[in-house]
């Protein structure tokens, strides 16, 4: 029996879908069987980022309403043998096309066949969020070092704590070491102080991530990138490995600490 992890954030544009794709792929690289589920009905993106758009035949709504069997809707990612699948969202309906009960049934079914089911949650706290959270055993909250994103993450954590699942864990995405250094960006400690949940990853802001997404291949497939390394480490932490989290150092003058701080991002 696998585990279902919902990737959520509240605010849009912080990198839920990119993180879902990368964490899912990273888990696959660790040898796990993974199914990605896109619940952003009407605004599906995960298939694009995974480069699987042109192979979609059926979607989540078709499965929920019984128009097809779940196996017919799953899109196999040929780059990873038989290990990575995508259950795409529908593009023509909206979030109300399915309900949490249907979602729960689908996720339960997938958990029997996969080690991990990664659920990409839409932005917002409405029906789409309720659907995405319904079948999940764990949650990962993505935030960026912006006050608005942290505020929304806080709201989402409050909602997740009411759900019957393990306490949510945090990924801070798109941190820019130079801005943090100058005090222009919230640092990791400030964010974890406010949100008060376990931090399982810090991902640096990197243009390569966008480039990779545009090519339909998640950044984790590139072994020489710092964002890729961050996602791989997150995957290892999900698997229970203890990979040290290198926080950004406290403000210090001196070139050595600045260098240390720069590398500290690569965690």
């Amino acid at each position, binding site marked *: 029996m696998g585990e279902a992890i919902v990737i959520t954030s509240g605010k849009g544009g912080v990198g839920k879908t990119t993180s879902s794709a990368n964490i899912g792929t990273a888990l696959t690289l660790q040898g796990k069987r993974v199914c990605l589920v896109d619940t952003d009905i009407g605004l599906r993106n995960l298939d694009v980022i995974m480069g699987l758009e042109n192979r979609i035949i059926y979607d989540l709504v078709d499965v929920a309403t019984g128009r097809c069997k779940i196996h017919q809707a799953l899109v196999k990612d040929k780059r990873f043998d038989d290990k990575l699948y995508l259950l795409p969202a529908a593009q023509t309906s909206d979030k109300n096309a399915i309900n949490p009960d249907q979602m729960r049934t689908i996720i339960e079914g997938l958990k029997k066949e996969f080690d991990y089911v990664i659920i990409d949650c839409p932005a917002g706290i409405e029906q789409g969020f309720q659907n995405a959270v319904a079948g999940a055993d764990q949650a990962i909250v993505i935030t960026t070092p912006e006050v608005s994103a942290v*505020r*929304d993450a*806080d*709201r989402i*954590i*409050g*909602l997740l*704590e009411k759900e019957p699942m393990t306490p949510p864990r945090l990924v801070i995405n798109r941190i820019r070491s130079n801005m943090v250094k100058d005090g222009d960006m919230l640092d990791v400690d400030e964010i974890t102080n*406010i949100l*008060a949940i376990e931090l399982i990853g810090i991902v640096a802001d990197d243009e390569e991530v966008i480039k990779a997404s545009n090519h339909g291949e998640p950044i984790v497939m590139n072994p020489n990138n710092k964002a890729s390394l961050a996602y791989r480490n997150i995957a290892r932490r999900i698997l229970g490995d203890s990979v040290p989290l290198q926080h950004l150092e406290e403000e210090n003058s001196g070139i050595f600490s600045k260098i240390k701080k720069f590398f500290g991002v690569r965690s």
Partner: protein
Amino acid sequence: MVNSHNVTIKGTKDGLLLRLDDTCSFSTLLKDIKETFKTHAHMYDEKHVVHIHLHTGNRYLTEEQVSQIQDVIDPKRNLTIDSVDSNVILKEEAERIIKEKSITLIHNVVRSGQVINTSGDLLLIGDVNPGGMVMASGNVFILGRLKGIAHAGCLGDMSAVICASQMTPTQLRIGDLYRRSPDRDVVPTEAECAFIDDEDDLIIDKLTVLKKVRPNLNCFAEGGILHG
């Protein structure tokens, strides 16, 4: 002093004190009150309003019953029942009082969009994040950082106070006085309290000041027994 079987009347400087027997039936009591006031009707002139204070001993009177007694004494309300004193109160009332006097302990982070509303005092162990809100009909004590909204005395108690380990709220509300947070350049390092002063201003000050402005804040006294 005038005496009947179940009713004792006593004159005081505020008016009349009626002691009512608490063992007889209510209908007997009504009858006796009627008798008493009929007998002594000549004692009261109609120009002055006489205030009556009822003491009912171990009997609980409903509002309905009080107005029945009023009608029996004097329907024209020259003699008016001013107050009713009793040794007993309703269970609901007692529970309400206990609730109001008690401290609710919550150990949680109050996150954006969450509202905690308690009657009585609130002791929160944890932060109130921006967008979160805590409300209490009594005082609010926060062992943590107050970054959201705190509302003490939310049913109108203007003497309520708000204390926090770190007072950096979005808004402070005491009673019906709402204030946005002060513009402070530095984050306060020590615990502070907020209260309403004599000029109806909301003041944030050091905790030590609280002893002076709210000397009656102690509710745990004598080995932790609630009183007052």
